[in-house]
């Protein structure tokens, strides 16, 4: 399966009368984006208002509460469209050509549940902890219709964000990309014949699926209702996996993370050189023990069936998913496949507590994304996109987190993407 990504570098975003991408600048007519977003019945029924703003790297801007971050892309050749099964029809994606508006994102903001949406600072110490401070962000702040239920509203804002990103992505359809790159994986036999001496490596990608607004969708399917299965890495580049998560901001995988998965990028970089990148195995993190057992059994079965030599396992979230992580790792090692896991830590503010809720001697190769409990102080920003009303309540905050002078004192957990468990950030440890 081969996909060509064409990267269109976006250097600025401007509000304008017309919508277009020209000489690296994205011109946006917010009313047109809004009209497209509100064509959806669920958005119309649940979202009272959506306002747009722009946040640029280095500006004294704080975006909060952040729900999702999405990279605008458009399918220009080959079957299907972006976000299959959700926005585009359910056809298989991951082949042909896709244009990417690089250097920018659509960010959805506004209260969903109030306690698990994050913070993105565009400058200062907070900006160092989030990859999204380096992007030009087109922020859509949503407010709910009175009396709407939280799960209906989460769905509506999720769709609103994806629709806005789809609309913006479409503007790149006829733009010449600045750079193109090919990504290709092979059938089982084909890959073995092509690279007979290279170790066979796959990526076990754990998807948050605890329910109660802790969900991930694959081709529109709620991941908690699926058994462990196989997906081609190029499918994820076309938005086959999307975030429906309101979980701790630091280690949730936004849709942007799924589109730009660094494990996928690094495995492709070594594909055909030091290893044979076989596929991705997607598995869930459910709240029933039977599901955890079944899904991790299935992960190990697939690893054995594919005759893998090694896998990288990435987690999403923390707490009971630590058990899914350890069960996957233990069972995969027991069928003779080597594992390395990527996780993060909740080791207390002093870093001295046990980092994970579960452990096993077979999980002996671990990469950490950092300690989410680490205290941080984020100075006041000149401008807030969204509202500071929930800063004391978001996971990692506490009563008094928002000081009267506008400074925020909280745990790293509050910052979107700070301890990402795909390794999409710069924190780690040796």
């Amino acid at each position, binding site marked *: 399966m081969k996909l060509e990504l064409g990267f269109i570098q976006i250097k600025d975003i401007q509000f304008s009368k017309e919508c277009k991408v020209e000489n690296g600048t994205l011109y946006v007519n917010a009313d047109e984006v809004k009209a497209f977003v509100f064509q959806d019945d669920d958005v119309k029924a649940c979202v009272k208002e959506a306002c747009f703003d722009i946040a640029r790297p280095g500006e004294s801007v704080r975006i909060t509460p952040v729900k999702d971050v999405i990279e605008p892309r458009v399918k220009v050749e080959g079957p299907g469209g972006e976000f299959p099964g959700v926005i585009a029809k359910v056809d298989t994606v991951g082949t042909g050509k896709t244009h990417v508006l690089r250097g920018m994102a659509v960010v959805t903001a506004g209260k969903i549940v109030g306690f698990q949406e994050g913070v993105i600072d565009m400058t200062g110490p907070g900006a160092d902890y989030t990859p999204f401070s380096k992007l030009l962000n087109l922020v859509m702040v949503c407010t709910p219709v009175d009396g709407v239920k939280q799960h209906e509203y989460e769905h509506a804002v999720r769709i609103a964000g994806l629709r806005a990103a789809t609309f913006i992505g479409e503007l790149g359809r006829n733009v010449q990309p600045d750079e193109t790159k090919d990504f290709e994986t092979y059938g089982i036999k084909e890959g073995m014949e092509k690279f007979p001496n290279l170790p066979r490596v796959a990526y076990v990608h754990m998807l948050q699926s605890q329910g109660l607004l802790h969900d991930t969708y694959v081709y529109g399917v709620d991941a908690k209702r699926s058994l462990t299965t196989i997906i081609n890495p190029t499918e994820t580049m076309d938005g086959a996996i999307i975030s429906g998560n309101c979980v701790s901001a630091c280690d949730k995988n936004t849709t942007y993370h799924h589109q730009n998965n660094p494990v996928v990028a690094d495995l492709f970089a070594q594909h055909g050189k030091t290893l044979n990148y076989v596929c991705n195995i997607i598995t869930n993190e459910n709240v029933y023990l039977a599901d955890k057992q079944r899904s991790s059994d299935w992960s190990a079965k697939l690893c054995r069936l594919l005759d893998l030599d090694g896998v990288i396992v990435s987690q999403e979230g923390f707490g009971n998913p630590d*058990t899914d992580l350890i069960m996957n790792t233990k069972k995969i090692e027991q069928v003779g496949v080597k594992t390395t896991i990527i996780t993060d830590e909740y080791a207390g503010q002093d870093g001295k507590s046990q980092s994970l809720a579960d452990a096993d001697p077979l999980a002996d190769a671990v990469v950490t994304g950092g300690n989410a409990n680490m205290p941080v102080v984020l100075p006041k920003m000149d401008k807030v996109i969204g509202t500071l009303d929930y800063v004391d309540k978001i996971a990692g905050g506490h009563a008094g987190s928002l000081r009267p002078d506008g400074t925020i004192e909280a745990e790293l957990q509050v910052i979107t993407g700070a301890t990402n468990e795909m390794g999409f950030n710069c924190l780690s440890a040796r």
Partner: protein
Amino acid sequence: MCTVTPISMTVGANRIVPTIAIPHPLGNPALTHEEEYALRKKLVTRALEALTTDVKDQTIFEV
């Protein structure tokens, strides 16, 4: 009584009774009120049996 018994084993609990799910350890929203009561009673009875059973090693009392 807990849902994620592997964590109970990791932290060294002696008597472990597996329960339904993390958001509702002693209930199941898919059941009727009466069925849920019967389920809860079965789980608590099993936990009381576990408490009155001598154990030498960490033990999971399957329900």
